[in-house]
């Protein structure tokens, strides 16, 4: 294992534990960065427990640094550290390791509903994923200065407003888990079909899957957490088949199924079965089940998919679900019926609505109307592969 992979795996865990030890996010980040700088200098080979080494080094460096400073945060952090050493009667040089619950606390802090959506995502990627500001800015098509400013402002609000660093109690959990799952889902989605340029950003997909795995390990009794992980795994499994050699988009029906990752599919199917046994369905679990049907056997059983979309639409009636359901309706009952279900569905700015309409119209032989819908879809997408795909479809009319 090299330093790079230690950094990927341990950065978020170490920051989370240092936030608890120091009571301040920025101090925790600095301390962990210091420790990795020392590691770069000292390690020929990572020690057997690199996370514990980083946390111990970070804490000791933080103590040194705090003794030299006299800001309010420094005084507070120093008091907190002293309190902890008194409480356990331990020597400050004793080795400490990352605590898994710390990561859970930190993700609930980062995704607190009192923070704006972009700030939640940026903080999660920065603190738990260890992504740098320019990487986050590239992924979300916002200027670096904007991302940096959002992160600074969010950290300040966490400190000033007293956003707690703890896992919400059972009564608050349903409301608080929602934004956490949304953030992980959006990170994956942005990677899967990025808003601009290349079709796929593998790093974001892998980071979302890693964080979802961590979350499922920390909350194994929450069916929606397992549902989200299953959904991401089943989508991730198909990623190698989604893009052709020229970077072009390949639709589900035309994908080479031998390129799918069987191990991830197996894992995803197991999770879906675990969710079914619990019988507490939710939107992520149903979407995972839909993806399980897509990845089961040599071809999709569309009547099962449609039944699941009916269930999903009843549970979360929104136009994106209605749009996806229309695709299943077309497979089961034909394009005319599907087109009828899209009557009155509005999704301003979302290219997949006109793209789906175009496909249904083309299948009905209504070429002129299909062309107009393709043109609308092409104008709305920022993703190169998707645009090329839509142009190809339009020109084949």
């Amino acid at each position, binding site marked *: 294992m090299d330093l790079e992979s230690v950094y990927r795996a341990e950065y978020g865990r170490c920051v989370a534990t240092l936030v608890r030890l120091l009571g301040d996010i920025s101090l925790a980040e600095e301390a962990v960065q210091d420790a990795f700088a020392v590691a770069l200098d000292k390690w020929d080979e990572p020690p057997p427990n690199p996370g514990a080494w980083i946390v111990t080094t970070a804490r000791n460096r933080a103590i040194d640094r705090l003794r030299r400073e006299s800001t*309010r945060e420094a005084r507070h952090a120093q008091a907190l550290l002293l309190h902890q050493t008194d409480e356990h009667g331990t020597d400050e040089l004793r080795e400490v390791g990352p605590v898994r619950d710390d990561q859970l606390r930190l993700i609930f802090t980062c995704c*607190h509903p*009192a923070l704006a959506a972009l700030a939640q995502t940026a903080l999660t990627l920065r603190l738990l994923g260890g992504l740098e500001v320019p990487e986050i800015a590239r992924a979300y098509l916002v200027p670096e200065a904007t991302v940096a400013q959002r992160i600074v402002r969010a950290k300040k609000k966490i400190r*000033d*407003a*007293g*956003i*707690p660093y703890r896992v919400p109690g059972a009564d*608050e959990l349903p409301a608080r888990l929602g934004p956490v799952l949304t953030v992980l889902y959006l990170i994956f989605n942005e990677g899967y079909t990025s808003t601009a340029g290349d079709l796929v950003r593998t790093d974001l997909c892998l980071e979302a899957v890693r964080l979802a795995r961590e979350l499922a390990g920390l909350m194994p009794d929450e069916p929606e957490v397992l549902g989200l992980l299953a959904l991401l795994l089943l989508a991730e499994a198909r990623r190698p088949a989604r893009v052709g050699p020229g970077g072009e988009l390949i639709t589900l029906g035309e994908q080479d199924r031998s390129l799918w990752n069987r191990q991830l599919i197996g894992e995803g199917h197991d999770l879906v079965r675990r969710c079914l046994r619990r019988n507490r369905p939710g939107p992520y679990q149903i979407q995972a089940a839909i993806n399980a049907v897509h990845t089961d056997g040599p071809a999709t059983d569309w009547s099962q998919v449609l039944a699941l979309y009916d269930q999903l639409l009843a549970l979360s009636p929104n136009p994106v679900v209605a749009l996806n359901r229309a695709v299943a309706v077309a497979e089961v009952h034909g394009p005319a019926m599907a087109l009828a279900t899209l009557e009155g569905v509005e999704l301003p700015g979302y290219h997949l609505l006109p793209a789906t309409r175009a496909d249904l119209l083309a299948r009905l032989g209504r070429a002129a109307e299909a062309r107009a819908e393709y043109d609308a879809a092409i104008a709305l997408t920022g993703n190169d592969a998707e645009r090329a795909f839509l142009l190809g479809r339009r020109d084949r009319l």
Partner: protein
Amino acid sequence: MKHYLLAVQFDYSAPTLPDDEIQTVYGDVERVNEELQKSGAWVFGGGLLGPDSATVVRAQGGNTTMTDGPYAEAKETIGGFWVIRAADLDEALAWAEKCSRACGGPIEVRPFDDETDAAEA
């Protein structure tokens, strides 16, 4: 412990509620006040008269000027407030939820400056 201001956002341009509804609001707010006092979170609170009762005072250099009316004309303005003690934002938000339900309007939650807290603690 931190201190938070829970400010009621009130639209004074909206038609006033019928008397029985106003009485319901008073009763609900009174119950939240009792709950705040019993829990030890209560510091201070009260309802305010409208912006047309306001006067703005400016003391600059040797001059003091007074103007009739609120500092800024806005459709929504502060209609009342609570100052509460809470361990963290989540605790303050839970009180804000109760206050909002009782008075039937949105509540802005603002933390007091930390240093003030430290001085008092």
